């Protein structure tokens, strides 16, 4: 028969920071790691006085897959699918951030079409990520209609990206020095359709919730954080911008094609849940604006650099020419030869600064790949936004932080 011991004898995987209350009459409640009201595997140990949260201890790690360890035994190309699975809501941004780090070490300069396409797809992914975050946060507050509007659009986006990459969520579309393939026929036409539909649906959501009494009561003045505190706790992305600081890597340290685009950095007023909701909604507007500019900027041309160290030769050539065959074999079996060195490259991910610190000792396999993931850093300071509010406020606050388990736990 089964040899599984009874549950009570299994060790506790965590050691909470506190097991006894500081205040008389308080109780300690464990929330998660698997809880229907928190999307994401996170455990919060909270001390409550009635319904008020006195202090919290946030634990993550339930989705740890050993990403960084696994990277050390794969070639630079082969770990692109792993990078995808960090933030599975906007996998393309991860792809491009990682590829750019490797390209910096190799000294590869992208072609203009690849640069514009990566920018376009990164903004498209950002929209998908923000749609997911806002939709889930609204659904947790009971706004089912708004959820369905946003998720409908997100599904159009996913299906549309699947037409390009072959996969809905984890695309593995970036390549070192370029992209997996060029756009299929008619892709841009469908993109314009979806953007127009998105304008309508996002407007409807604004109409449904922006001035909705229930929504405002749950969001306004809840989970407030100041700019100084946000910087101290390492918050970046929409959370930092919701405090009123216009800090955006796309503007401050332009990469890809962002230097050539016209866009604004939306900010909030006081860093509460409502501001974070609104910043995300406005960022989607800016992303659509950027995508429309990029559609006009796209010129025909190659999408991969002509560099035999990283770009795969054409399949026709592989079958007919010995040099191309050997080139292909070397790239697959040994991996692209990346010169020794170290680099830190950061992109503005949907949730904040997504940085890759990679160390190469030369050769086709990384010595170290470290991901500075925004969600992980945010979990280190999220207690500042939970403590002092009501137990029920944990749900919208946590929703507005948009913790992505994949990139938090790696």
């Amino acid at each position, binding site marked *: 028969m*089964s*040899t*599984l*011991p009874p549950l009570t004898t*299994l*060790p*506790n*995987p*965590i*050691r909470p*920071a506190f097991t006894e209350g500081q205040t008389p009459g308080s109780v300690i409640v464990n929330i998660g790691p698997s809880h229907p009201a928190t999307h994401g595997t996170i455990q919060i140990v909270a001390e409550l006085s009635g319904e008020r949260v006195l202090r919290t201890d946030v*634990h*993550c*790690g339930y989705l*740890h897959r*050993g990403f*960084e*360890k*696994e990277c*050390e*035994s794969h070639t630079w190309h082969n770990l692109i699918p792993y990078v995808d699975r960090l933030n599975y809501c906007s996998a393309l941004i991860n792809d491009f951030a990682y590829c750019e780090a490797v390209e*910096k*070490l190799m000294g590869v300069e992208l072609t203009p079409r690849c640069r514009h396409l990566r920018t376009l797809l990164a903004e498209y992914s950002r929209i998908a990520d923000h749609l997911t975050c806002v939709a889930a946060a609204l659904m947790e507050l009971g706004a089912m209609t708004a959820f369905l509007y946003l998720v409908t659009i997100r599904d159009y986006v996913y299906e549309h990206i699947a037409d390009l990459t072959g996969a809905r969520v984890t695309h593995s579309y970036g390549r070192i020095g370029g992209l997996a393939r060029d756009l299929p026929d008619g892709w841009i036409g469908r993109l314009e359709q979806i953007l127009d539909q998105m304008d309508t649906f996002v407007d409807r959501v604004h109409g449904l919730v922006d001035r909705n009494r229930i929504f405002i009561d749950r969001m306004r003045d809840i989970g407030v954080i100041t700019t100084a*505190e946000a*910087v*101290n*706790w*390492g918050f*970046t992305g929409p959370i930092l911008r919701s405090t009123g*600081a216009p*800090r955006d890597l796309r503007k*401050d*340290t332009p990469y890809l094609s962002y230097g050539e685009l016209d866009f604004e950095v939306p900010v909030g007023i006081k860093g509460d849940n409502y501001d974070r909701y609104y910043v995300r909604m406005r960022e989607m507007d800016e992303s659509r604006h950027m995508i429309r500019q990029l559609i006009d900027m796209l010129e025909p041309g190659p999408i991969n650099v002509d560099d035999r160290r990283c770009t795969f030769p054409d399949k026709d050539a592989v079958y007919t020419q010995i040099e191309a065959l050997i080139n292909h074999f070397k790239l697959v079996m040994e991996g692209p030869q990346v010169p020794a*060195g*170290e*680099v*830190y*490259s*950061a992109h503005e991910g949907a949730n904040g*600064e997504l*940085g890759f*610190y990679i*160390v190469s000792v030369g050769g086709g396999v990384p*010595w*170290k790949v*470290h991901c*500075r993931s925004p969600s*992980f*850093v945010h*979990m*280190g*300071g999220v207690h500042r936004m939970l403590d002092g509010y009501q137990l029920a406020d944990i749900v919208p606050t946590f929703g507005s932080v948009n913790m992505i388990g994949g990139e938090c*736990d*790696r």
Partner: protein
Amino acid sequence: MSAGGDFLGEVQAGVGARTLSSGMAHGILVLDVEPQDLVPLVKDLKGAFGFDMFLDVTAVDWPQRRPRFDVVYHFYSTRRFVRVRIKTRVDESEPIVDTLVPLYGSARYMERECHEMYGIGFRGNDDLRPLLLYEGFQGHPLRKDYPKQREQPLVPYREVEP
């Protein structure tokens, strides 16, 4: 971009006395420092040069080298939009550096991760409980001598019935 480069030049000149070596690499100022000089250097960077965001701390394992570990920090200035990397070396026999938690709140979580993954101690950080791993995990998985395939199941495997 050149404005950021000029500023990093000023930083390099300003803190040069505390470092072993310094230089620019891919747009980032890299400072090598002795472990005991780390906290004074970071105080300078934060106070005099406005590096107000602690981005990251991790380590790099060089098993053949003495001292064995690089502890690598990244900082960002939200006013000047530039980054600085600080590297310090510690040996396996005493892999300890001073904590930066009094200067940056975000160091708390990231030092916990570096501690469990590499076994680097952070003197003064009183909360180094396992974070991504679980209580009672043996060893430090990102060290090069930790075999990737080693398993430490928290819940024992069930025996397959014939």
